[in-house]
């Protein structure tokens, strides 16, 4: 009867051996099977490390067919799971994180000097020895772009129904609009109060997205890009609706929007994401809210508006001024002559004639190299993954 002698971690070389006929079982159990994206106790990026350690062993054997076959099955497996559960944020976030980690591993252990700067001597010993997988890195990078775009579509679908209600319609500042009796206002604590979303619902949704991405070990630079994209969507959808609704163009709505934007900024500060570029994407909305609040009467007011609203197009500025509706006796309708003055001042701007923002725009994504300090030889495979047929080498 074979005796299982435990080995010290230093005896392992950070590779995983598997039989060629078990490749499909590996992909099935690791990628297609259990929803690992919903497990909380896994090392972030574990599937990526496991797959890379399998690639390392096939490379060590100098078996190019085994390497090719595993990489192709992995890529097809990831595409398959995203086709099947591609509308689930956790699944998409999980496989985006793991695809990026796999890509980073292929770089970190490629043997190319540029990617080895932060490696320990032991990590350098773990570099691929026989094959240059640069072309497969390109394929994985293309796959990561596809997954990123899918992630954006998923979060957009979740956020979209909340934005107009939470950013424009729902009033959290009591008593400023002067149109509704404040005593009848709804409480703001529930995520969907009779189908109404509040700013609080949006913030909680942002928290949920952020926590999932962190839990999956998504690269911090990638999280920043996702957050910037989310803020762009919130800003664009809010502004577009403001530009189409007269009832949203009042002094008090300007106040409410500025308060909501300040809460979103607070969220960025809290998550240490102020350098993500997310806040800047809200600039057109911020300026529209300011435009609702500034004086709109004299030539000096016109000059101030023209220099302030540099993130809005002329069409947008004019539209807001045309829609502006006083809701109490302290506010005044904007005179047609004032709007003419603004148009005259802005005629040399040569900006786009577009009124609405492209809410579907996706910023180009990049995946900056992010090497890992994790020592491959220490990685253990939990029995729950059902990978008993592969062995540590």
């Amino acid at each position, binding site marked *: 009867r074979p005796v299982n002698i435990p080995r010290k971690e230093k005896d392992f070389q950070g590779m995983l051996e598997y039989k060629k006929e078990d490749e499909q079982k590996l992909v099935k159990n690791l990628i297609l099977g259990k929803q690992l994206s919903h497990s909380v106790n896994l090392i972030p990026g574990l599937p990526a490390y496991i797959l890379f350690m399998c690639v390392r062993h096939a490379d060590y054997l100098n078996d*190019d067919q085994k*390497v*090719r076959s595993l*990489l*192709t099955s992995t*890529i*097809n497996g990831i*595409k398959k799971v995203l086709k099947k559960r591609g509308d689930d944020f956790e699944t998409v976030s999980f496989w985006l994180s793991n695809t990026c980690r796999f890509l980073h591993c292929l770089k970190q252990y490629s*043997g190319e000097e540029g990617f*080895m700067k932060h490696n320990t001597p032991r990590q*350098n*010993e773990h*570099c*691929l*020895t*026989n*094959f*240059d*997988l*640069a*072309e*497969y890195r*390109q*394929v994985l990078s*293309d*796959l990561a772009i*596809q997954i990123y775009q899918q992630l954006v579509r998923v979060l957009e679908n979740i956020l979209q129904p909340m934005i107009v209600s939470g950013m424009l319609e729902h009033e959290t500042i009591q008593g400023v609009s002067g149109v509704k009796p404040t005593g009848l206002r709804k409480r703001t604590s529930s995520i969907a109060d009779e189908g109404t979303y509040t700013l609080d619902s949006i913030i909680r949704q942002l928290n949920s997205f952020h926590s999932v991405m962190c839990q999956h070990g998504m690269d911090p630079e990638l999280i920043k890009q996702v957050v910037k994209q989310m803020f762009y969507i919130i800003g664009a959808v809010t502004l577009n609706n403001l530009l189409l609704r007269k009832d949203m163009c009042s002094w008090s709505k300007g106040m409410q929007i500025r308060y909501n934007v300040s809460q979103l900024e607070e969220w960025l500060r809290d998550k240490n994401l102020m350098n993500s570029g997310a806040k800047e994407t809200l600039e057109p909305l911020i300026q529209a809210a300011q435009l609702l609040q500034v004086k709109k009467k004299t030539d000096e007011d016109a000059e101030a508006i023209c220099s302030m609203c540099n993130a809005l197009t002329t069409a947008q500025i004019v539209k807001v001024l045309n829609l502006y509706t006083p809701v109490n006796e302290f506010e005044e309708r904007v005179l047609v002559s004032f709007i003419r003055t603004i148009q005259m001042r802005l005629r040399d701007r040569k900006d786009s004639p577009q009124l609405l923002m492209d809410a579907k725009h996706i910023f180009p994504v990049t995946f900056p190299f992010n090497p890992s300090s994790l020592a491959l030889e220490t990685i253990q495979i939990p029995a729950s993954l059902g990978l008993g047929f592969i062995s540590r080498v």
Partner: protein
Amino acid sequence: TPVCPRPRVLLKAPTLAEMEEMNISEEEDSP
């Protein structure tokens, strides 16, 4: 000191689009 003394062999890879096509034909072939 070079870590890996031997030059590695470049493994040619199909593009993602080519892989997709391969995948589609595989799916079409399957009953």
